[in-house]
């Protein structure tokens, strides 16, 4: 009887592995199959000339260029907001907070990490409405609001990876510089942070990926289908994930749908690239941290 139980487990595990692999493979293969054909300059720049479009001299219609630029600026702004604050918070929790305070804050940030992205987007929207009413009527859902909301979304990632990277250092490493007369701050900057850099950087890259792929937050905070390259932070903008969503339900011609496949493929490749990058950097930096003279 026991023998069959074990045999069954083995057979079962392999079946599950096969099913999951088949699922992933079909998703990726389908996308590549349908979208690979559309990957060319026309997909990105439409009828405009690529060179002139990149220098913003010619507006691109029916091309992905504005969406790509929009995503790029969005990610840059969100990280600019989230990185300093998340980094500083992670340092505080790892190095300065005492046991009970750390526990309480960890709970708060766990909750923040668990909040569905659409709720964060809703908060961003409500924030925009609030600011619109009470501060300046020129504030409306826009690039700035979206990046703020995205920053809220990825903040817990950055906090957590910073905190874990610092806490992962051995007690000896922490005390060495202190025993030599270094102050807490000196210890932090000259020893602790350089040694936890790999963890922190890979956390940063994962946060970047999260900003690039998110759709729910930007849907509620200012992304639109056709706005061209954003003129200012207070303007509406386009983004790649939203374009994909929009096309999936509102495509009006087979060509448009093909564009959707192309966009999906580009977004997929971008996110996979970032993911691999985070992994490689983590490995390389760990290597460097051990052999830097």
């Amino acid at each position, binding site marked *: 009887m026991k023998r069959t139980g074990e045999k069954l487990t083995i057979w079962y595990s392999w079946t599950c592995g096969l099913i999951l692999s088949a699922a992933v493979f079909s998703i990726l293969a389908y996308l590549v199959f349908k979208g690979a054909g559309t990957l060319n300059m026309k997909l990105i720049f439409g009828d405009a000339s690529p060179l002139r479009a990149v220098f913003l001299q010619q507006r691109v219609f029916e091309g992905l260029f504005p969406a790509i630029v929009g995503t790029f600026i969005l990610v840059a702004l969100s990280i600019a907001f989230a990185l300093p604050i998340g980094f500083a918070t992670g340092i505080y929790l790892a190095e300065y907070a*005492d*046991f009970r305070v750390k526990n309480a804050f960890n709970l708060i940030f766990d909750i923040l990490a668990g909040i569905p992205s659409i709720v964060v987007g809703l908060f961003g929207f409500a924030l925009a409405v609030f600011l619109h009413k009470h501060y300046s009527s020129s504030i409306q859902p826009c690039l700035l609001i979206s990046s703020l909301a995205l920053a809220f979304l990825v903040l817990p990632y950055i906090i957590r990876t910073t905190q874990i990277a610092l806490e992962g250092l051995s007690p*000896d*490493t*922490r*005390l*060495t*510089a*202190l*025993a*030599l*007369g*270094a*102050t807490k701050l*000196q210890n932090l900057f*000259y*020893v602790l942070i*350089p*040694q936890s850099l790999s963890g922190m950087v890979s956390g940063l890259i994962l946060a970047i990926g999260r900003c690039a792929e998110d759709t729910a937050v930007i849907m509620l905070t200012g992304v639109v289908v056709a706005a061209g390259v954003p003129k200012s932070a207070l303007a509406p903008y386009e983004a790649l994930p939203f374009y994909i969503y929009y096309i999936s339900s509102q495509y009006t011609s087979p060509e448009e749908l093909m564009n959707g496949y192309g966009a999906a493929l580009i977004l997929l490749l971008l996110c996979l690239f970032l993911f691999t990058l985070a992994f490689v950097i983590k490995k390389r930096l760990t290597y460097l*941290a*051990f*052999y*830097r*003279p």
Partner: protein
Amino acid sequence: MKTTLQDKTKIQVEDLNFFYRDRHILKDLTVRFAENSITALIGPSGAGKSTFLITLNRLWENLPEARMSGKVEITLDGLRRDIYQGNLPVTELRRQVAMVFQTPNPLPMSISRNIAFPLKMAGNRNQEEMRHRVEQALKMAYLWEEVKDRMNDDARKLSGGQQQRLCIARALVLEPEVLLMDEPTSSLDSTATEVIEDLLLELRQHLTILVVSHYLDQVKRVADRVVTFEDGVIISS
């Protein structure tokens, strides 16, 4: 309060109690240590020897859930002072009361940067002076000849015994008055151990040294005096 010519006490500890979480680790310790001497601290594992060392350079203050009561006076720069009161910054204290750990812990940098590190933390900017002091410290630690041609090599490439001497040199570069050592040779082979023991005998002329050790023959070779710990209490000295 100035010391008199006869008073050779370097460290004076009175009614020291130390608690970690709920455990009472050091109990009402009163002991004194003479200057320019080597005192060995021996006793079973967990008796509190290493904990005692870190009360002397206040390193325990970085551990949460640790508490201490009592008085620790050390004579530094000719002045006897309570290291927990008064206005001696803890970073300054640690430059005068240096510590070497059980497992060598070179920082991930070159040999020269490792030794220069405490100088940098203390605010030294003079490159020439730093180079000179680094060389002095390495000579004092019997390591100069072996590393003088590869000062830019990563310190972690050195052998165990060399790394420990590196850590000693690093601790010496600020010219401390007290050296605390927690089982300095337990991770080294017998040749390396011998070198370090000779080094200690040499250093005794300049410093007051406290060594936690498990090796009774080492203690016999090196120590002027033995203090025995058991269960947080000193039972003979």
